[in-house]
């Protein structure tokens, strides 16, 4: 067994440079795809990235099972995951920051508040600031460049509470955080059966959340006239919930992998970092949702 005085430095590996190649292809391919150059390079890059990640994580798991990871090395993984989540926090902070800036400063200014109101009235007469923004400045001056949404998704009032999808999404996601914690608790006591059940429930709840989210988007696009193009309300709404949904997708997938590993007999009470890292990610995604629920839905 490795000890603190023997930190495992891996042999040369082909994975990183292939990973970099795949990211390069994806960046190039995404550029081509948006500039009408077809999406084949993007697809190749994505496929390569998935393959690299599969082999990479398989390698790391095998190293751990082979006992090559000292406690010190495991701490490196802990630090790595923690700071990765911190970087994700900052990524969401930008979009929240944009939302707050628009709501509390930019829109009121556009509506004529502040000491630049005379000038702004010259450019956007007739515009009234409101949130959710149902009529864009462009609409107010008779342009159809950005048409505001027909309806918004903010709090519908107590009488319609039970039919309000975001509430159910909140319940589903918060519950999944609890079941995820139960799974962790079970593995800490080496109760594999309970671990698998609770983790399975968590994955299922994640999946249900995604289905509901899809339902909401579908509804927004087809019936509410709420799209990416419907002004800043649509922009912030879809970017915040969209990136969150993407993270839920990733988190669900990560937990699914841990479930498969649990079924294969991986993990024990003192060696379960793959699961723990995924669960931290899951709790983080959950906290982001609470922020979304408050600032995108309830306080709108």
């Amino acid at each position, binding site marked *: 067994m490795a000890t603190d*005085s*023997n*930190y495992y*430095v*891996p*042999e*040369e*590996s*082909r994975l*990183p*440079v292939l*990973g*970099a*190649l795949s*990211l*390069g292809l*994806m*960046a*190039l391919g*995404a*550029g081509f795809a*948006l*500039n009408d150059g077809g999406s084949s390079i993007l697809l190749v890059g994505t496929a390569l990235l998935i393959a690299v990640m599969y082999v*990479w994580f398989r390698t790391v798991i095998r190293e751990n099972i082979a006992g090559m990871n000292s406690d*010190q090395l495991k701490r*490196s993984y802990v*630090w*790595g995951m923690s*700071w*990765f989540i*911190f*970087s994700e926090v*900052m*990524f969401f*902070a*930008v979009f929240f*920051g*944009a939302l707050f*800036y*628009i709501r509390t400063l*930019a*829109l009121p200014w*556009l509506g004529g508040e*502040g000491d*630049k109101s005379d000038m702004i009235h010259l450019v956007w007469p007739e515009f009234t600031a409101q949130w959710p923004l149902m009529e*864009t*400045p*462009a609409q107010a001056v008779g*342009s159809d*460049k*950005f048409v505001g949404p027909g309806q918004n998704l903010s709090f519908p009032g107590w009488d319609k509470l039970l039919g309000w999808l975001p509430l159910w999404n909140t319940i589903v996601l918060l519950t999944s955080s609890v079941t995820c914690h139960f799974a962790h608790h079970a593995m800490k006591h080496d109760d594999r059966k309970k671990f698998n059940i609770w983790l399975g429930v968590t994955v299922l709840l994640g999946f249900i959340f995604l289905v509901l989210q899809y339902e909401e988007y579908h509804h927004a696009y087809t019936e509410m006239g709420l799209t*990416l*193009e419907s*002004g*800043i309300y*649509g*922009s*912030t709404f*879809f*970017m915040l919930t969209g990136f969150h949904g993407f993270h839920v997708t990733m988190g669900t997938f990560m937990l699914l992998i841990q479930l498969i590993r649990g079924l294969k007999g991986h993990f024990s009470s003192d060696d379960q970092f793959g699961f723990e890292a995924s669960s931290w990610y899951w709790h983080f995604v959950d906290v982001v949702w609470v922020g979304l629920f408050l600032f995108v839905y309830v306080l709108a």
Partner: protein
Amino acid sequence: MAHGPAKGIGRWLFATNHKDIGTMYLWFSFAMFILGGSFAMIIRAELFAPGMQLVKPEFFNQMTTMHGLVMVFGAIMPAFVGLANWMIPLQIGAPDMALPRMNNLSFWILPFGFSLLASTLFMEGGAPNFGWTFYAPLSTTYAPDTVNFFIFGIHIIGASSIMGAINIIATVLNLRAPGMTMMKLPLFVWTWLITAFLLVAVMPVLAGAVTMMLMDINFGTSFFDAAGGGDPVLFQHIFWFFGHPEVYIIILPAFGVVSAIIPTFSRKPLFGYSSMVYATSAIAFLSFIVWAHHMFTTGMPIAGELYFMYATMLIAVPTGVKVFNWITTMFKGSLSFETPMLFAIAFVILFTFGGFTGLMLAVAPADIQYHDSYFVVGHFHYVMVAGAVFSMTAAVYYWLPKWSGKMYDETMGKVQFWIAFIGFNIAFIPQHFLGLAGMPRRYADYALQFTDWNMVSSIGAFMYGAAQLMFLYNVIRTIVAGKPTSVEKTWEGAEGLEWTLPTPAPFHTFSTPPEVK
């Protein structure tokens, strides 16, 4: 663990060794430095005389943009990451970086990212032309089609930075040798730890900014378009929330380098070690709450202007602590002036000069005069070039014998220093005068009264450019034909774990951690 370097190209492509990866970072950044430098030479050649001589205005805009992007993201940042890769494990007694494979991934993303960015020069529509700050709507509504490649390039370069930073944090926090407490860390390690924290905090912000651009350009959102209820000023807030910490990401490792070199050649311990650590932390903290001093002319409520003005001035306090400590370290020291020391002293003088012009720019009412003028260009080149690049050059001369086992030619080093030092000042002092006289930055042409100082500036820039080719020659000549040295302590006054190792440093070091007393 006992494996040596692999043979052939595989050694570099599949590397997990911090020294090999550090070397690749350093060479890559030097290649980018030459590329970005050649863009600068084109800019200065065009500005040598009024009127359009060499390039078209559209191409000039691409040059100013690409010069900034390549220098900031391709030259300076990777150079310091390379230095971190080489030196942090040696300075804290670690066997390698904490996550060696991710380390190599961080590096190899860069050649792909910058090939993508540079390839836009040859695409229809040309390279990004909206300035390295890529303000909306220049970078959205009015951007060339290649902007999508720029955006995705920034995405992967940012991912590289985040992974590199996470690796450094994990290494410093987890791989210190027994007895190497936090307050015994060499200052270079401390400054990099704080830099890495800044990177993890703000690179995602940059990713968010370019993502919003991407959506505005391609998917009809209106983040930066007032017609849909957004605000172009929002872009500037987000960009500078990234951009101001980014400035310290560039300069903090330079502080660390200088804090290593000055004590060595003063033959005295660093004065005020703990105050250096606290000052660095204070600068990092302040960097998050001063961003809008870049936007005094953009339009802000007066309370905002005042707040950002005073908060910015506060930065002078911890920075002053640092400058004071460097000078006090030299005070009554037994000084000698080898090339690294010359660059380090030049750093202290010129960086302080750049700091003072920074203070001038912090004064909101005065900034309205200086904003977007050549004064700003002069100011930040004192910090970026005489700050970051001089310290980087100092670091290479300082540690090259330990890396390569060869001694550089002292005379050649000193000649290079003086050409760089004189060339630099001839290039950038006049830019302050030009700016104060009213010459705007980023213009391909100028009014006749600006001719003289522009000519002087261009001559200085060519001189400085020549000094870099000389630097390249010095480094290659040292590696190929330098005088072999096996002295552990290249410099008699040097302290630290890296100087307890054999010279050149073996492929694997500190496989068993040393005991630090």
